[in-house]
């Protein structure tokens, strides 16, 4: 009945598209007649639509949510489709979608959180029982005689059947006396059993999937953006007149971060400070190329600000390493590490490590589209966190939340880059200066790479005291960096029980470079530091790196850790002899355990490498084993493990950004290399580490941890050289 509230934008592409029609519909702003719950509608043609409060960034989260509903609903897989849950409705109806889970993760990227799964299973079960009740009423038979399967209701006694769609409208209005109980997991037929291809694959392979970059609206203008090249800098002077006459140019927009903005009226999962506007200029034109050419020609002078003090990358690295030499803020202290170090006897191992700034380099460059009118805002955006997008749009435009509408698009890679919403902030800051016209703001690849919210640079000095048996009795870690770098550093197994005396300190450096979450924030560096260092301890103790780790884990109350290690060791041929210049390395880490056993996802890796005497490294094979408790989709799990391993591989081998006079140097893939098909080692993912514990934890981040240190440890095995910084391509690996 409320279909009239549904605004639909339909844009016909030009003739060359062979009749291709792009349509972007405003998701249902209010309850629709065919709705069973806000999560689920069933049409008279049997189409089941699942509303998903999770952007599709490539991990299959939307498909997973559909599978979860289908498990209880008993619908045919071919009848199911998904759409994005509208965040505006969530706001208007007091957290309709968000209250089913911690709002921190709602409208975020995960699909298998316990409460989220329960909500969707319940939505499916409830709809199934209401369909049965409607059929029972139609046939005037007891509901207990009706079965529901493959979108068909069957009366067991008479053999009569009805399609779901035939009674859907009736069923949507049925109220159950009580909600049905969910099937026990052992009776699941889809989850854990089936692995359907992602629902949007068919559109992807035809070029029809609509990413943020593909939004096309009537009257749309394009903007090319340039933010202060030294982050935190300010625009000093711009000569807009100089480009006004260039072809297609509509206007030059200046973004001033000090201008007043609206009140913060909508709940946000993270502080909106993370999305603070940056000083910027943008050229708005009829077409992107025109905007870009005019931006390149635009005379502009920037004031660099404090960041210019960092003249070179080495200056920065030196400062980070030096900061680890002094005591700093205590993050965690267990037992008495200093007393252990002061006790004579045993042996001390000490080493300093460093990881550089890295950019997410999502294949889809940053972009977004907004139409800001006086009393309504529409945003089409490839967000990783739609609720964040909403809150930012409300603040940036000052338009009340009830009139702000976010249209989530597909996302061409996230990896954490599109969570905090600095991108949509800039889109809106530009678009509000061109009111009444949709403006599609595009970061060039160079702008995307030089205006990142980077994996922070961080350094650490690690000091361990080994007892006479070679095992560590005390560990001190002094970190330095700025931004999210301390995240998770205290929560690793080593720091949560494996070593009796632990002290962690952190020093914050006066760095201006902006940072953010990057596939496994904090974790992607900490795993490298700790797993390389444990290898150093094993070597100091004269122990095999695998045996040493197993001994460390002997008292750890989560046996899956050892199981993961044993699995990768067995599968990789651990212990078999290798010629000089070749070697294996092992590592294990856990993403999101929060200091607890049987939590988060544990991931172990063995890498086999060859290093020529001249120092040329080739990674031959990577074996990975993991424990996320249980799995609901084997192929989706594999895809994440494969992709995450490649991500960890590229990060460790290739990625580093340099600083020159406060600016980021690298702007494109010729300077910030990516592994390609021909560079791929054999990556083998094994299921032997799975514990069956009752949880379904993340798979995207975990492999990013152990792959790098496994390679560094393999390089040591091959050459006797310890590599304590990434990327490995910049290290001298030559041996003789």
């Amino acid at each position, binding site marked *: 009945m409320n279909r009239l509230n549904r605004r639909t934008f339909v844009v016909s592409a030009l003739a060359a598209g062979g009749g*291709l029609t792009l349509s972007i519909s405003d998701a249902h702003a209010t309850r629709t007649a065919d709705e069973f719950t806000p999560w689920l509608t069933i049409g008279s043609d049997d189409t089941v639509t699942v509303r998903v409060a999770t952007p599709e960034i*490539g991990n299959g989260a939307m498909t997973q949510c559909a599978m979860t509903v289908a498990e209880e609903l008993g619908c045919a897989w071919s009848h199911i489709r998904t759409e994005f849950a509208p965040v505006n409705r969530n706001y208007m109806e007091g957290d309709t979608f968000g209250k089913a889970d911690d709002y921190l993760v709602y409208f975020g990227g995960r699909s298998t959180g316990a409460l989220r799964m329960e909500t969707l299973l319940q939505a499916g079960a409830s709809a199934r029982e209401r369909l049965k009740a409607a059929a029972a009423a139609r046939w005037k038979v007891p509901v207990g005689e009706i079965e529901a399967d493959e979108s068909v209701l069957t009366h067991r006694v008479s053999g009569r059947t009805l399609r779901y769609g035939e009674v859907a409208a009736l069923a949507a209005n049925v109220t159950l006396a009580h909600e049905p109980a969910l099937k026990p997991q052992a009776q699941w037929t889809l989850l854990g059993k089936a692995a359907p291809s992602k629902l949007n694959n068919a559109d992807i392979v035809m070029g029809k999937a609509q990413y943020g970059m593909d939004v096309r609206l009537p009257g749309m203008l394009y903007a090319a953006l340039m933010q202060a090249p030294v982050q935190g800098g300010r625009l000093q002077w711009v000569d807009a007149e100089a480009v006004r006459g260039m072809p297609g140019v509509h206007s030059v927009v200046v973004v001033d971060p000090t201008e007043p903005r609206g009140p913060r009226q909508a709940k946000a999962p993270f502080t909106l400070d993370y999305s603070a506007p940056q000083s910027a200029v943008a050229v708005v034109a009829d077409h992107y*190329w025109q905007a870009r050419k005019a931006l390149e020609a635009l005379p502009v002078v920037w004031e660099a600000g404090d960041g210019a003090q960092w003249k070179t990358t080495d200056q920065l690295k030196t400062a980070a390493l030096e900061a680890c030499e002094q005591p700093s803020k205590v993050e965690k202290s267990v037992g008495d590490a200093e007393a252990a170090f002061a006790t004579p006897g045993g042996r001390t191992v000490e080493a300093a490590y460093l990881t550089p700034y890295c950019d997410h380099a999502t294949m*889809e460059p940053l972009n977004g589209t907004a139409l800001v009118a006086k009393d309504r805002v529409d945003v089409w955006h490839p967000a990783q966190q739609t609720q964040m997008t909403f809150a930012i749009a409300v603040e940036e435009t000052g338009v009340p939340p009830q009139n702000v509408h976010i249209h989530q698009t597909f996302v061409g890679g996230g990896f954490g880059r599109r969570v905090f919403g600095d991108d949509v902030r800039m889109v809106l800051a530009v678009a509000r200066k061109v009111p009444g016209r949709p403006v599609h703001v595009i970061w060039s*690849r160079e702008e995307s790479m030089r205006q990142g919210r980077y994996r922070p640079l961080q350094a650490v000095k690690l000091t361990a005291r080994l007892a006479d048996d070679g095992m560590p009795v005390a560990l001190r870690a002094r970190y330095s960096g700025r931004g999210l770098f301390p995240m998770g550093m205290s929560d690793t197994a080593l720091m949560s029980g494996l070593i009796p005396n632990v002290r962690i300190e952190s020093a914050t450096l006066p760095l201006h470079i902006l940072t953010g979450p990057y596939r496994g924030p904090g974790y992607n560096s900490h795993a490298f530091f700790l797993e390389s260092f444990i290898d150093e301890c094993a070597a100091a103790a004269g122990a095999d790196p695998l045996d040493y780790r197993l001994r460390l884990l002997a008292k750890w109350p989560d046996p899956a850790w050892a199981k993961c290690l044993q699995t990768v060791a067995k599968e990789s041929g651990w212990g078999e002899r290798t010629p000089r210049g070749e070697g294996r390395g092992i590592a294990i880490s856990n993403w999101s355990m929060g200091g607890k056993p049987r939590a988060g996802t544990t991931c172990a890796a063995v890498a086999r490498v060859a290093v020529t005497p001249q120092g040329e490294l080739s990674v031959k094979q990577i074996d990975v084993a993991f424990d996320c408790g249980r799995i609901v989709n084997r192929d989706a799990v594999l895809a994440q493990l494969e992709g995450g391993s490649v991500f960890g591989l590229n990060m460790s081998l290739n990625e580093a950004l340099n600083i020159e006079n406060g600016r980021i140097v690298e702007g494109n*893939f010729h300077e910030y290399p990516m592994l390609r*098909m021909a560079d791929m080692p054999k990556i083998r993912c094994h299921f032997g580490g799975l514990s069956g514990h009752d949880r379904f934890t993340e798979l995207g981040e975990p492999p990013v941890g152990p792959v790098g240190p496994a390679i560094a440890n393999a390089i040591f095995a091959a050459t006797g050289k310890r590599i304590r910084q990434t990327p490995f391509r910049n290290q001298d690996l030559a041996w003789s």
Partner: protein
Amino acid sequence: MSKAITVNGRALAVDADSETPLLWVLRDHLGLTGTKYGCGIGQCGACTVHLDGAPVRSCQIPLGAVDAPVTTIEALSFDGSHPLQLAWVSLNVPQCGYCQTGFLMAADALLKAIPNPSDADIDAALTNICRCGTYDRIRAGVHRAAAGREA
């Protein structure tokens, strides 16, 4: 300033500066958004199309230099039934999917040149970037499509 080009079998007149890269002509002037922008400097291959049947990086070709018919992903098949597309879906190749149309166009050109490519052929022909790391599955997809064609 109008320039005549042929795209997906249709003769079109494009009103754009002759320096405009074919990529942006396709995306912004013709609404063919299946061809993607990834780097703009010929590095990533997300913008791969066929020019006279050969794979090219459309970000590197100015409109003025387009002197042969252009084929984009929208015409690889009109219904998703190309063997590569079928293989991609059944092997669940894409993750975010943004790079995949470029890979598919490069793979199609490869299969036309070498119907049954070896791994080395694939390494040499598919030099595109996939940040999601789907390389193994892309390789498997090419082999599957090649096998299907032979059958």
